[in-house]
C-alpha cells in the first residue's frame, strides 16, 4: 500500500537504508540509477539478483525491481527472488518492440509507465496494478512528467463528458480496452493508482506532481545524484505529505545543497528518449 508515499531508486544496501530512514514507502533496487544508465549507453538489463537480494535484506519496506519491456523471463526471475513489485520499465533497453509482458500470468504486482490514457489502459488491460508517468528518466527535468499527468487527466475529463453511445469510438481512438474506458468514465479516475516518475529532482517537483493529481512519487536519480542525498530524501518525503502547504514546502526546501545536474529535453535526440520505448 504505497499510495501517498515516495519510492526511491537505490543501488546499494546503504542507500536503501538512507531511503528507509528518510521515510520512503518502498525502494527500487537497481545496478545504476537512470542518469548513469543514460550516460553509459549500451544495453541496460535487469539488475544482478545479488544486488537485489542484498537490498531486500537491508530494509523492511517493500523492494521493487525493473525488468525490460517484454522480457517476461526477467520478470519470472524477479518474482522468484521475491521482490514486492516489478517495474516493466522503459529505463531499460526493451527486449520486445511489439509486445509488453502479459502481467496476468504473475502473482507479483506490476507497475508500468504511461504518457497518456490509452497507454495507461493498455498496460492495465495487460494486468498492471499501478501506473506511473514515464516522464523522461535520468534528466532531473520534470517537464515530461508534467506533460504526461496533464495529458492523462485531461483525457479522463474528456471521457467523463463523453456520452455512453460514443464510448466505443472513444476506446478505438485511444486504442484502449472498451471495458476499461467504461470503468474510467464511471470512476472519474484510473482504476489503479497513478504515480509521478521521470525527472523529479526537488521537493517542489514532488509537490507539483501531487498537486497535479498524482497518487505518489518515484524519485530516480534525483536523490543519490544530488549533493546531500539524506537531507534531500527526507525533504522530498515531507513535501509529498504536505504538498498543499507552501509554508512547509518553503521550510523543507531550505539548504538542501545542489540538486542533480539537469538535462534539457531538446538536447536529447528523439530516438534516445526513454519515454518513446514501449507503446
Amino acid at each position: 500500500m504505497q499510495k501517498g508515499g515516495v519510492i526511491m531508486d537505490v543501488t546499494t544496501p546503504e542507500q536503501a537504508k538512507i531511503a528507509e530512514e528518510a521515510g520512503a514507502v518502498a525502494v527500487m533496487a537497481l545496478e545504476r540509477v537512470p542518469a548513469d544508465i543514460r550516460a553509459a549507453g549500451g544495453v541496460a538489463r535487469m539488475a544482478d539478483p545479488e544486488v537485489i537480494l542484498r537490498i531486500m535484506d537491508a530494509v523492511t519496506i517493500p523492494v521493487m525491481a525493473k525488468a525490460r519491456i517484454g522480457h517476461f523471463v526477467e520478470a519470472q526471475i524477479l518474482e522468484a527472488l521475491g521482490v514486492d513489485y516489478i517495474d516493466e520499465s522503459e529505463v531499460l533497453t526493451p527486449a520486445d518492440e511489439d509486445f509488453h509482458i502479459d502481467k496476468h500470468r504473475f502473482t507479483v504486482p506490476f507497475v508500468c509507465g504511461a504518457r497518456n490514457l490509452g497507454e495507461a489502459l493498455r498496460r492495465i488491460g495487460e494486468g498492471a496494478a499501478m501506473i506511473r508517468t514515464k516522464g523522461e528518466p535520468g534528466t532531473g527535468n520534470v517537464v515530461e512528467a508534467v506533460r504526461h499527468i496533464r495529458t492523462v487527466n485531461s483525457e479522463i475529463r474528456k471521457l467523463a463528458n463523453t456520452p455512453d453511445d460514443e464510448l466505443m469510438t472513444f476506446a478505438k481512438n485511444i486504442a484502449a480496452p472498451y471495458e476499461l474506458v467504461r470503468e474510467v468514465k464511471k470512476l472519474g479516475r484510473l482504476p489503479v493508482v497513478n504515480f509521478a516518475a521521470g525527472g523529479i529532482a526537488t521537493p517542489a517537483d514532488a509537490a507539483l506532481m501531487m498537486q497535479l493529481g498524482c497518487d505518489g512519487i518515484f524519485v530516480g536519480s534525483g536523490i543519490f545524484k544530488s549533493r546531500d542525498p539524506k537531507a534531500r530524501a527526507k525533504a522530498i518525503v515531507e513535501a509529498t505529505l504536505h504538498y498543499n502547504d507552501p509554508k512547509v514546502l518553503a521550510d523543507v526546501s531550505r539548504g538542501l545543497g545542489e540538486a542533480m545536474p539537469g538535462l534539457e529535453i531538446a538536447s536529447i535526440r528523439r530516438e534516445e528518449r526513454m519515454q518513446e520505448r514501449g507503446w
Partner: protein
Amino acid sequence: MKIGVLNIQGAVSEHADMLRRCGAEVALIKRPEQLADLNGLIIPGGESTTIGKLVERFGLGPAIKDMAAAGKPIFGTCAGLILLSGKVAGSEQFLLGLMDVTVARNAFGRQRESFETDLDIPVLGAHPFRAVFIRAPLILGLGEGVEVLCRHNGRVVAARQGNLLATSFHPELTDDERMHRYFLAMAKEQ
C-alpha cells in the same frame, strides 16, 4: 459523528469512502490541531515506518495519545495496528505504544504471499468476514486487558483493548461495512 482518518500515506481514501457509506462525517488528518473535535480516529494501512516517522516529525504522536487517554476510540488497520502496538519484534521503529500487544511485521511474508480469506469474527455476527491481508502483521503477545476478536489458523488477527481496536487485515478494501460499523458503535458509546 465526526471520524478522522490519519492522512499521512496508505489506504486513506478507502477508509474515508467506507465511513461515509456508514453515515459518518469524515476529516482527513495531517496536523495535530485537527484532532481536537473528532469522535474517533482511524490509522490506515500503509508503510508503518513511513507513517511512524512522519507522525513523529510533525508532532502528531502526543495529540493522538491525548485522544486515546480521553477515551475516544482509535482503530488501526495493518500498519495502523503496528503503530498502536507497544512493541514490534526485532525493530526500534516509532510506535504510539497505546495497545498492550507485541506484533510481528510482514508476518505472512512479502507481497506475493498476500492473500484473502474468510474470517469468523463473533462480534460482527455469524456471517464470515472477507479479509484482505497485504504484507500483514500478526499479534504475537497480548496484555491482560486485550480481548481477542478473531484468530486465523490459531493466530490473533483482530483485537480490542477498551477504546482501541486493531486488525491485521484491511477491512476497507472489501464491501463489508461491519467492521467500520462496529467501530462507529464504539464511538457512539463515548
